[in-house]
């Protein structure tokens, strides 16, 4: 049994793990197949029936412009998932590499890199995000790279800390004594040993990035209308909430169920890998 398979089995052993994985898979599958299963065109307007409540024909009701809320909710996670999945991958790769290198090298290199990381972390991400989008536009590629870059900074810290725990171990010393190159030591010796912590971190980063992406859309800097997006939908329908709550409700449920799913999954993952384990020995 491979390590990944065993981990998966452990995650699925707990109820929260099952629910989390089910929610995440549901959303990913939905994002892939939704263009073929939605009942209406997401842009089609029903001219007279804006703000109509849920009915048999329109399960989620209609929004301000008379568009089907259910259809738009099904489609609204596509861009968010695309950007955040690749964004997380980018963040994990560059963050881990830099973090491991920093922790392994130590000394002044490490000191310098850590101060640089501190500097970046001191600036609110949202402001940096808005700055980049203002200068380079909000295309999917720009969003992926920017989110990937910003969220990788936190990964540097984690990967460095995990690496520090490993570099003093004799197997790293043995590899150095053998004359292995730095990158072989990092990737073949250390990475497999800090993989668990990185996996959990990836899941957490993903959920944070989703929130950030939705916040961007909410502020009007993420997805360009009329493309359906949860953040955007919430922002647009928010002012009519006392009058017509349904255009806000469905995207809210969709977004929070995905984020809860990811968090449950990350939690179960951390538990199954023993990363949250408390000292159980008597003393």
């Amino acid at each position, binding site marked *: 049994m491979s390590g990944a398979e065993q981990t998966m089995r452990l995650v699925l052993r707990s109820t929260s793990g099952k629910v989390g994985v089910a929610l995440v898979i549901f959303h990913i599958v939905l994002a892939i197949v939704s263009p073929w299963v939605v009942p209406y065109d997401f842009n089609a307007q029903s001219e007279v029936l804006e703000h109509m409540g849920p009915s048999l024909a329109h399960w989620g009701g209609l929004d301000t412009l008379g568009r089907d809320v259910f259809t738009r909710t099904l489609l609204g996670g596509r861009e968010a998932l695309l950007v955040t999945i690749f964004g997380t991958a980018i963040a994990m790769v560059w963050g881990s590499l830099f973090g491991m290198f920093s922790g392994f090298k130590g000394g002044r290199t490490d000191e310098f890199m850590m101060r640089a990381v501190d500097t970046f972390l001191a600036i609110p991400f949202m402001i940096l995000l808005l700055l980049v989008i203002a200068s380079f536009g909000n295309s999917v590629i720009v969003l992926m790279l920017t989110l990937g870059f910003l969220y990788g900074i936190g990964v540097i810290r984690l990967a460095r800390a995990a690496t520090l725990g490993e570099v003093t*171990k*004799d197997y790293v*010393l043995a590899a150095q*004594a*053998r004359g292995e190159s730095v990158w072989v030591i990092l990737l073949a*010796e250390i990475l*497999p*040993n800090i993989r668990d912590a990185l996996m959990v971190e990836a899941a957490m980063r993903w959920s944070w990035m989703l929130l950030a992406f939705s916040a961007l859309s909410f502020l009007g800097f993420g997805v360009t209308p009329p493309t359906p997006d949860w953040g955007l939908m919430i922002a647009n329908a928010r002012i009519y909430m006392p009058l017509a709550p349904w255009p806000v409700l469905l995207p809210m449920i969709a977004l929070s169920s995905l984020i809860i799913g990811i968090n449950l999954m990350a939690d179960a993952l951390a538990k199954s890998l023993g990363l949250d384990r408390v000292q159980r020995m008597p003393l």
Partner: protein
Amino acid sequence: MSLPLLKIDGLSIGYEGADGVAVPIVNQVDLQLEEGSTLGLVGESGCGKSTLLLALMGYYDSGLARLAGKVALLGKDPGALNEADLQLFRGGDVALIPQNAGQALTPTLKIEAQMLEALRLHTPLPAASRQDRILQLFDRVQLPDPANLLGRYPHELSGGQQQRVALAMALAGNPKVLLLDEPTTGLDVTTQQAVLALLSEIALESQTAMVFVSHDIGVIGAVCERVAVMYAGEIVELGACNQILQHPRHPYTQALLSSIPKLGQAWAFKAPTSIQQGQDRRLSGCAYAPRCEYVGPTCLKQKPRLTRDQDREVKCVQLSEIARMVAPAGGHKGESKMVGQEYVLSVNNLSVSYDHTGWWPFASRQERKLTVREVSFDIVRGQTLGLVGESGSGKSSILRTLIGLQKSFEGEALLLDKFDLTTPVAHRSKACLSKIQMVFQNPDASLNPRQSIFAALARPLRIYFRLSEPEIRAEVERLMAAVQLPMEYSARYPGQLSGGERQRVAIARALASKPDVLLCDEITSALDVSVQASIIQLLKDLKDAQGLTLLFVSHDLPVVMALADDVAILQRGQICESGRVEQIFNAPEHPYTQSLIKAVL
């Protein structure tokens, strides 16, 4: 004192095997302990001694459960207590001193905070008088300068001090029973002796009962009145400590005692093949039968019972047989062959220092501290030099320098008269790298836990030689055979091997590059005695078969004596005495060497 303090009746602890049959780790153990008495549990790793000890605290490793039997400790069954009572019970009436005190102390809390916590949980003392009590406890465990210690973190204490702090913490609740799980295993001989003396004193003075688990029967002998020898989860011999140490009756006890190298005695290791075999707990007959040299037909059929035999209880049906054929311990250290007088490794005036290089280049100069001072030695091909010294004497610094991982040092070191060992590892040629290899102290740490044995052995082959995949496979097979491991093991991960097997893999990895010199850094200190004996035997074989030159670093004098041809004694970074092994051990001249030899149990 009518009721015994501890009474164990037919206790079995185990897990459910893959086929649904219960596999006992501890099997049918009966034990009693009276107030104020001391009992040792001895056996090699995996015999169930720690499991038994932890069960006394009501703690079972995950997957383990009590299968049968009763435990009554102070009239209570720790397995039946609820969480809250258990918490009071642990640390209150019963205290555990774990194997590695350094890891048992919380690294991020100062000693003071941890001591206060222990007192708060386990004594009714008011907060104001806790401070005095700590000083009292520290005085009791003979920790000097307590006021200074309190403000430090655990890593700022030495191993002996950490062990004393753990002891003080355990004594905080005035326990009636102390459970000790290999408390001195990681300590060097002089520290170990001091801690043991302290433990015996505490046992005598305060009438605290002790259950002392160790693989080292010598350690048990120094502290305990009675000893129970365990094998495969069963007690095979139980009786007064000095009786059993002097006249072991059970064949396993005999083998265990004979596998400890002793000073002043030529070391002969008996039955090297039997040692590697695992302990099979499912045999219908005697568990020790597969390894026993006195095995008879009844042994295989019927499980022996613990029966009274004169002054002790022994679990063996062949006792009278054994008494008749007492084998005289023989054998002598083979003369090492001289293969010409070629210096394979010459070290000249080597000094190692630890510089505190910070951001400021000027401030660091004064902080220079020499850990090794002008050390020189030469090793002839095929010979073994033993480098002996306590922890902190600079042994490991010398090895680190030779392997090229030390940054600041002065002096000369030449390998095979052509390779300069003062170049750091990153700038060494492959030829040079392959000629000198190192085996580390602890195989748990020196093997990557996420790398299969095959991958670990293939790495050096890929670095040093251009080999095709089938050639690598053949080479790995050769290496596994050289260290006497079956090839099937190559698919396993280090966690699936025992400590001794892991160290064999580490040795195999070092041999992969076909080195001329092998540096061994305390490679047996993390292993228990019988495994240690088999590793020493392996190194001897390899030395003879391949003409290896060894630099063997250890704090364990008997081990060095069993293996080395020459020996150099290090004290505070300087060689204070060196010469042939026999000469040094029979007539030590330097007072430090004399004290080292005396300190050995």
